[in-house]
């Protein structure tokens, strides 16, 4: 048992004791004199200056003053205040916090079908009636979504109809709620008005939040249950996709159901096709006590017969989308019954190599690059020494070693392929004199160093990430001079001469390496070549999305290998059009988002998709959270109404000093 002081400020009344002590100390000291008779002194009083005739009542007055002082102290402790209309309003202030998270969309499936949110709104309306109309107070309503906000702010009876309208128009979100921020906003109101009460409507058990908070738990385990898709992941393993599923049931669920699993747009390189949907049987069972449970069922879907859940008829190399869905369930929260899986289309990186001298270094090096990007990209590599076989279109990266196909050079000013990244490896003088002016790159001379010279870093560039440039060396190179308008950035130097240039225009992506692989130690440092190639792909051809499933409210970090990225929601509405990367895209709706990359190069648009779902945690209808939050009324002095505490304190002091004055006065004859 703990002794608490509800109004500790009442102890200020003890100041009166201090005043009494002071009065005792400074009170006039009277010297006692024993006289034979005071007869003449009494008679002499009539010759004194006339004074207020209070002597006969002095004792009573002193007693009265002391009684009044004690009474005033008691009244101070009782927190005196004047009750005004404003006081009534303040003393009946109510702050309502309505959880607007996705779990509040849960319906009472066994009865009315009302959602938790609807019930919260209905109960809030009743509270509005009670507080505004009957009590004459004020009410504020905080809608606790991802960013809590006051939808009703300190409304009184005059705003009653407006408040009802606002409540009827309030909508529940599909995401999570920041209840802690909402409670902070409510606490702020209680700090301003310690008499204010807070009512929280939520289906999430929040525990004790202080004596100022009334928690209304809208969860009803007898009438609510939920089955949902907890997660579905497509994992690229051994050149095929394997699907891992996690489905869960929340509440008193005991049933057999079927999970619909359908893969669309399978493309293993020999044409797209669809597989027949799988209907995977799943059972949920409550325990022997009939208590509600959180039941998880994990499934694996792949072409093997050992698959848990379902075996596919074919391998899946690429796929467009996978639909996972519980059909025909009448659970409380249908939003998590469906999930789409994307990310099955891996970026294709076709590398074309044309050289005047056959070089197996490239084929083995590019093979390593392909293995490195296996999870996200399909890297293909073709190499030729025949000019007529050299491609100048249809690939993503063109590696021209020593020479440039003359058929391209004949194309006039462009000179190079217009649908991909061109990498000129040690281009010959003849070719560069032909295409160099158009590129803004002028051949100056061939430099044979006669000795092996290490390279140095040029401008900081993504191409040199993890590349040990200073460990690389050349014995000969060509000297080029880039015009300022060319857009070429010198990435590596040999002495004072740039030997690796990079240009990244939307319409022209070119890398020029001014030395031969044969005249460098790149062949003895394959890891640096590997990093250089990987950097090139990552720099010029970044993947658009790093993940394909988001929870609502998240922001997708996107990149672009083209010039712009158009983001659309499931209704085809443009969410954003990005031109600077990497960028972020807010995902505020459930469903499929489409990300379309547009190129300034002569390439077709690239489309990627991602699925935005309700937060996984919202599927759990009967969860608990401890906000570790306390809002207390009793911690504050109840300063309701016009505070006249100060005036009572003043009256105590005045009374005590009047007493002092009375004590000070001469006592003459009673």
């Amino acid at each position, binding site marked *: 048992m703990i002794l608490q002081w509800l109004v500790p400020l009442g102890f200020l009344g003890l100041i009166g004791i201090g005043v009494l002590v002071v009065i005792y100390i400074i009170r006039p*000291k009277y010297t006692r004199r*024993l006289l*034979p*008779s*005071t007869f*003449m002194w009494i008679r002499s009083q009539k010759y004194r200056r006339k004074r207020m005739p209070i002597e006969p009542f002095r004792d009573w007055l002193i007693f009265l003053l002391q009684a009044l002082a004690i009474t005033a102290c008691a009244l101070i402790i009782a927190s005196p205040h004047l009750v005004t209309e404003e006081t009534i309003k303040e003393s009946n202030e109510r702050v309502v916090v309505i959880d607007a998270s996705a779990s509040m969309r849960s319906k009472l499936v066994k009865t009315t079908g009302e959602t938790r949110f609807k019930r919260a709104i209905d109960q809030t309306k009743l509270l509005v009636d009670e507080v505004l109309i009957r009590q004459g107070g004020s009410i504020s309503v905080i809608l606790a979504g991802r960013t809590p906000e006051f939808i009703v702010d300190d409304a009184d009876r005059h705003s009653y109809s407006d408040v009802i309208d606002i409540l009827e128009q309030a909508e529940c979100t599909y995401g999570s709620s920041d209840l802690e921020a909402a409670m902070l906003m409510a606490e702020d109101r209680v700090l301003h008005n310690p008499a204010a009460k807070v009512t929280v409507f939520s289906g999430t058990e929040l525990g004790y939040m202080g004596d100022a908070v009334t928690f209304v738990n809208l969860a009803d385990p007898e009438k609510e249950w939920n089955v949902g898709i907890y997660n579905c992941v497509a994992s690229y393993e051994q050149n095929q996709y394997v699907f891992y599923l996690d489905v869960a049931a929340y509440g008193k669920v005991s049933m057999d159901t079927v999970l619909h699993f359908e893969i669309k747009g399978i493309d293993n390189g020999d044409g797209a096709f669809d597989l027949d949907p799988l209907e995977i049987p799943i059972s949920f069972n409550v325990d022997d006590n009939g208590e509600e449970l959180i039941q998880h069922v994990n499934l694996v879907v792949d072409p093997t017969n050992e698959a848990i859940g379902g075996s596919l008829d074919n391998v899946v190399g690429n796929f467009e989308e996978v639909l996972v869905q519980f059909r025909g369930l009448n659970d409380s929260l249908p939003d998590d019954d469906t999930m789409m899986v994307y990310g099955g289309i891996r970026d294709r990186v076709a590398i074309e190599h044309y050289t005047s001298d056959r070089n197996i270094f490239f084929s083995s090096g590019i093979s390593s690059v392909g293995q490195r990007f296996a999870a996200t990209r399909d890297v293909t590599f073709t190499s030729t020494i025949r000019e007529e076989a050299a491609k100048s279109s249809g690939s993503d990266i063109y590696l021209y070693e020593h020479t440039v196909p003359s058929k391209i050079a004949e194309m006039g000013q462009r000179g190079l392929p217009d649908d991909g990244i061109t990498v000129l490896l040690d281009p010959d003088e003849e070719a560069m004199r032909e295409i160099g002016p158009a590129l803004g790159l002028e051949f100056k001379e061939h430099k044979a160093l006669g000795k092996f010279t290490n390279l140095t870093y040029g401008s900081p560039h993504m191409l040199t990430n993890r590349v040990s440039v200073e460990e690389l060396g050349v014995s000969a190179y060509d000297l080029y001079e880039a015009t300022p308008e060319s857009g070429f950035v010198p990435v590596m130097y040999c002495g004072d001469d740039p030997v690796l240039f990079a240009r990244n225009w939307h319409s022209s992506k070119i890398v020029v390496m001014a030395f031969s692989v044969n005249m460098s130690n790149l062949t003895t440092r394959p890891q640096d070549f590997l990093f250089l190639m990987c950097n090139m792909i990552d720099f010029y051809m970044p993947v658009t999305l790093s993940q394909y499933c988001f929870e609502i409210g998240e922001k997708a970090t996107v990149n672009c290998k083209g010039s712009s990225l158009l983001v659309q929601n499931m209704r085809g509405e443009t969410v954003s059009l990005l031109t600077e990367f990497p960028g972020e895209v807010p995902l505020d709706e459930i469903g499929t988002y489409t990300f379309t990359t547009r190129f300034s190069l002569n390439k077709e648009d690239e489309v990627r998709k991602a699925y935005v779902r309700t937060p996984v945690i919202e599927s759990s209808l009967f969860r608990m959270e401890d906000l570790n939050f306390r809002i207390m009324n009793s911690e504050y002095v109840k300063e309701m109404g016009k505070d006249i505490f100060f005036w009572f304190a003043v009256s105590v002091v005045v009374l005590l000093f009047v007493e002092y004055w009375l004590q000070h006065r*001469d*006592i003459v004859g*009673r």
Partner: protein
Amino acid sequence: MKNFLNDEFFDRLEVLSLNFKSSLMGIFGGTHRIKSYGQTVEFADFREYLLGDDIRKIDWNLFARFGKYFIKLFTDERRMHIRIFLDCSRSMGAVREKAEYAISVAAAFGYLAVRNMDKVSFYLINEDKCENPFGYLVGKNAFFSVIENLAKIKFDGDAKISDAILSMSALGGNDGISVIISDFFTDNDWQKAVNYLTFKAHQVLLVQTLLPDEIHPSFTGRSELIDSETEHLVDGRHLRLRISKQMISAYSQAMDEYQEEIKTFSRKLGIDYLTVSTGVPIEDMLFKRLLDIGLYRRVT
């Protein structure tokens, strides 16, 4: 009493004699000449013989000369009764100096009485009673036999002078002087007592004995004045005052007015009133003030 009640003090009183009013009659055997004729040897007058007169008083020489009977008249001397009423309240005894002074005055009157062969009695007034513990004293021997007891008088309580004197059963008339020694600081209506004494044809002398501080208070500042006659601190006679010059002035004004009241009252009744301060030597009072008012005369 060591200051006054000693042989030297009484020796000095030998030169004084009470000066009674001639209208007093007294009783026989005294030394005071009165208006009526008596049996002394001192010739006073002649008058014609009337039937019934003592024929032994006929002056035969005058009969020889005028042929008529004349008788000789002689003066008469009577003994007076000096009643000394002493206020024995605590206000008189709270300060020893005041008590000693009052007793000394009383003793002086007593001695003067017995020296002139008068009868003296001391009446001690305490509360509403008037006691005469020493009886009637005649002669110096009797006086000196009680003088020590006189010095041991207890001053206590209040003194209601009028109640005390009016309650006395035997209070002769026209036979002497009644001296009331008091500070007269009482709410009791002492004037009644004086009226009664004058009604009894006493020659009355009021001796108001005061301390110098009672005439002119010498203290100032905040003072809680406690009346010696009351024992309870919570009493109407207790005062808490800031004694300032104005307060002293008011006191003096009140004192003057009170004394004037007594004087006026005394004049109206034809009695004597004397205010004495204990700060003034008692000789000054006896040999100057009393002579001034004519109550005493010097004898040679």
